[in-house]
């Protein structure tokens, strides 16, 4: 399995985009910690960057990489290798390179300036989101027929998860504000990996006290061991499910 991903990884790590991405994350993280005196304020700013930029870069980079490697994937499929192995190797190569960019760019500054529970929650969320959106991007590119559609589809998914979804949740909460919705909001948050990550980190910060009754319920749930297992479980589901669908589609696809 590593035979192919090793070379995919080597190829990506030399590309200028990944290097630029790493530098960007690193500069942003360092400057956040330098500008804000209170490190938890810096974490909050960093959180917003991680939640918006990471999914976007993972989606777009993966989709472009997939289409650029199309002829190479074709050649690999003329070798004695199963389709499943080819796609999983590509996934491993892309996700390892994006993870290392995140670790170098955000992980090291966070470990230097704020190595506490919040810091680790941020790193966990960032790594999970990278994997989740790489997996979703593979699904989008395998399903879409050409590059333009693939990138369009990926961007649409990003808009949905990063912007539209929150709007929809707010709409539901406002229209049904007469009913007790705490459990429902908990469920709704699980359906969006970005929201799940946000809640998971927020509750590790002091500001969760400002979030009222729902916040208390969340803190009760996410603060406990079950909450952490729940978050990890849902995140893994978000990683495995799109990837599994992508592999299933890829096996039957005409290259």
């Amino acid at each position, binding site marked *: 399995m590593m*035979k*192919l991903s*090793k*070379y*995919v990884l*080597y*190829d*990506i790590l*030399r*590309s200028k985009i990944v290097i630029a991405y790493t530098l960007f994350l690193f500069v942003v993280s360092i400057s956040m910690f330098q500008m804000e005196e209170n490190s938890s304020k810096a974490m909050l700013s960093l959180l917003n960057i991680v939640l918006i930029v990471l999914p976007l870069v993972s989606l777009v980079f993966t989709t472009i990489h997939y289409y*650029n*490697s*199309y*002829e*190479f994937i*074709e*050649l690999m*499929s*003329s*070798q*004695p*290798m*199963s*389709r499943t192995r080819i796609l999983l190797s590509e996934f491993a190569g892309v996700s390892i390179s994006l993870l290392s960019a995140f670790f170098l760019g955000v992980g090291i500054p966070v470990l230097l300036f704020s190595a506490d529970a919040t810091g680790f929650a941020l790193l966990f969320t960032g790594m999970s989101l990278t994997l989740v959106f790489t997996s979703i991007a593979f699904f989008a590119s395998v399903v879409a027929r050409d590059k333009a559609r693939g990138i369009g589809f990926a961007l649409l998914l990003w808009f949905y998860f990063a912007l539209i979804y929150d709007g929809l949740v707010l709409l539901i909460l406002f229209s049904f504000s007469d009913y007790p919705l705490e459990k429902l909001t908990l469920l709704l948050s699980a359906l969006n990996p970005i929201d799940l990550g946000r809640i998971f980190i927020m509750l590790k910060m002091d500001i969760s006290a400002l979030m009222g009754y729902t916040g208390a319920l969340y803190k009760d749930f996410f603060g406990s061991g079950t909450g952490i297992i729940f978050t990890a479980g849902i995140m893994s589901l978000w990683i495995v499910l799109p990837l599994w669908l992508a592999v299933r589609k890829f*096996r*039957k696809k*005409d*290259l």
Partner: protein
Amino acid sequence: MIRIENINKRFRKLQVLDNISASFTKGQVVSLIGPNGSGKTTLIKSILGMVRPDNGKIYVDKQLINNDPSYREKIGYMPQIGRYPDNMKVGQLFKMLQNIRNVPAEKPDSYRVDKMLIKEFELEKIFEKPMRTLSGGTRQKVSAAVAFLFDPAILILDEPTAGLDPLSSEILKEKILAEKKKNKLILITSHILSDLDELTTHIMYMQEGKMQFFKDIEALQEETGELRLGKAIARIMKGEQFNSEWIDKMMEIKNDGKIY
């Protein structure tokens, strides 16, 4: 070695392969010819398992093609367009392919590795160059060397000489001739009939997804009274009133006078 039974493939409204059946055995050099979009590449890709036919069966060495990829060890494939990861070095590609087939790096000789084309094309000189810096022709040479690398019993070459300079094209043709003598099965698609003249033993002509005929070259020469492939095919197609525009184009190609 390869048996194709009633395969069909439809891309939306277009019937790309229309009930194709054929059987190729070793020692044959089969030229797949036909106008653009006649289904040649799709047929090749079906044999390689890249395209899944809607129905029908393909056997390679008596093994039915399904999800088991092991049969592809016997096939060397040279694609029409070879594109490789931008930052991958030429040497790494060969290393990776050997890796995938579990060829030990120290003793490649224990496995059948054929580096003749790497030497003839002088690819070792560019082993340290990244793929993105290579010209189209050089990439084509790399693809050719990849196809012959594991001394496979079946060679599938999709437009092998398109884009190669005359010298390299001649090297490749010599190599194909040498492999032909080793009693291998070779499938070639090409529009340059003069290139095929010296190599081919059988002609398979396709049009609009249908196989129009599959004949050995002697029969073709006898039927048409023409020794040269281009003319022979042109005659047979004119007689049966196929796509005549394409034939005229074929006739334009100058032949160097070598007779098969």
